[in-house]
């Protein structure tokens, strides 16, 4: 039996990713938003009449649709930074466990703490002393070492279970709302469809093939992430199979319903292949959104919400949407609104109660303060 102290994940690479999202991507997106607004305003001096007004309405509508993108990138960066810090602090903490274990006569190999084996007992003739108890390092272990080692081993097991349970809960609390907010971009998807209507040739001449440049990078990112997920799942199995103390569900963190809901979410996300378009594929996103809502509800299936969602989808599919004279089948703003509501079902009152502090201080800084990680706060 053993306790695995490895924590998969690369905090440094996650920080690089977060920095790319914000300030890099978020600021450039905001710059585009601001420039479109300026373009609309400036055009009043140079372009008059009905055509000029149509240009300004279009430009402002596009700016409005773009507006949520920089906020999303910035929020995602903050959560990824906080997560990276959490992993780093966890890795430091588990390193300390390993050091302490070695000092308490436990065997640590490849960051795995082996369960202590009780020393052999001897039947000793009167007047004789038992033979010395040598540890694996060749040094004599003092009497009572086993009890101390076992006590520490059990303490480490409990701390490891708690750390992983809290991490899973944290991932649910902070990553899932970001996944739910994929609906923030429905107006942008809709705006693009509307602009294209009647202007297909003009637009395709400037945007076609261009996205291929970043799509290939994104696919590479996704392929590597798929492998990282396989590695993380293998680690989870190893962690649970290493010791019965860690093998059962940590009941204070997980109910059977929550475990099931997480499995369904994993399956929904696993169905998404590398390179699959996400924000423009409502059907694909909805599977994930319903699963996200279920996990955020602690696994109590939001069947009413899911039913509502299904009903809305059916209606949208039957009638389509008519916007600007064009039937935009598959572009379903009302679905986004309902899906957003489904996700919001999972938001607890406690999040709202903490709103003041949370809105004033970014998540990564708040957590660093809570953890006493002053180096990060003041760097």
């Amino acid at each position: 039996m053993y306790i695995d102290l490895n924590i998969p994940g690369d905090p440094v690479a996650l920080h690089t990713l977060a920095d790319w999202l914000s300030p890099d991507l978020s600021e450039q997106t905001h710059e585009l938003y601001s420039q479109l607004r300026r373009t609309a305003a400036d055009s009043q001096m140079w372009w008059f009449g009905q055509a000029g007004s149509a240009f300004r309405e279009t430009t402002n509508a596009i700016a409005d649709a773009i507006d949520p993108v920089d906020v999303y990138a910035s929020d995602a960066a903050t959560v990824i930074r906080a997560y990276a810090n959490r992993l780093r602090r966890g890795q430091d903490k588990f390193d300390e466990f390993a050091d302490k274990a070695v000092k308490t006569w436990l065997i640590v190999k490849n960051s795995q703490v082996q369960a202590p084996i009780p020393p052999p007992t001897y039947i000793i003739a009167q007047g004789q002393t038992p033979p010395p108890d040598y540890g694996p390092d060749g040094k004599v272990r003092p009497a009572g070492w086993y009890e101390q080692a076992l006590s520490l081993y059990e303490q480490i097991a409990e701390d490891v279970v708690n750390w992983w349970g809290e991490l899973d809960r944290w991932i649910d609390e902070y990553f899932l709302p970001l996944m739910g907010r994929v609906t923030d971009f429905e107006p942008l998807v809709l705006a693009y469809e509307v602009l294209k209507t009647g202007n297909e040739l003009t637009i395709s001449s400037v945007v076609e093939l261009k996205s291929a440049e970043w799509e290939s990078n994104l696919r590479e990112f996704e392929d590597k992430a798929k492998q990282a997920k396989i590695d993380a799942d293998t680690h989870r199995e190893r962690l649970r199979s290493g010791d019965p103390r860690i093998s059962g569900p940590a009941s204070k963190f997980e109910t059977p319903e929550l475990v099931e809901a997480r499995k369904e979410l994993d399956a929904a996300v696993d169905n998404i292949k590398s390179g699959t378009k996400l924000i423009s594929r409502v059907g694909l996103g909805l599977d994930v959104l319903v699963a996200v809502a279920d996990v955020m509800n602690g696994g109590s299936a939001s069947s009413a919400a899911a039913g509502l969602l299904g009903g809305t989808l059916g209606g949208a599919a039957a009638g389509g949407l008519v916007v600007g004279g064009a039937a935009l089948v598959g572009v379903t703003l009302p679905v986004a609104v309902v899906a957003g509501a489904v996700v919001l079902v999972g938001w607890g009152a406690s999040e709202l109660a903490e709103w003041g502090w949370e809105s004033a201080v970014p998540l990564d800084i708040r957590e660093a303060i809570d953890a006493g990680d002053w180096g990060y706060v003041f760097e």
Partner: protein
Amino acid sequence: MTKISVSRDELNEIVKKSRTEAESLRDMLSGLPTGADGGRASDKIPFIIRAAVEAAGLASDISLGLCAIADEVVEDQLATEAEVVEALDNFSHENFG
């Protein structure tokens, strides 16, 4: 057929600024780091990254599309009120917003 009332040189200048920002955004997307081991969140992070990247890509595309329509005005391919309104009236308040 009412001709539009526009200063084409000035329009060209202000549209150029939006195009520059949209192209900078598109170029920036190519700088996405190609790997970041997210450990146990390795399935959720790519979902979020794809949402952000696709949205930013779409923001760039739609802006470049708008600039391309404006270019047709500058180049006099769209010369009348009716032609421009036909190209852009989908965004009138009755239909959108």
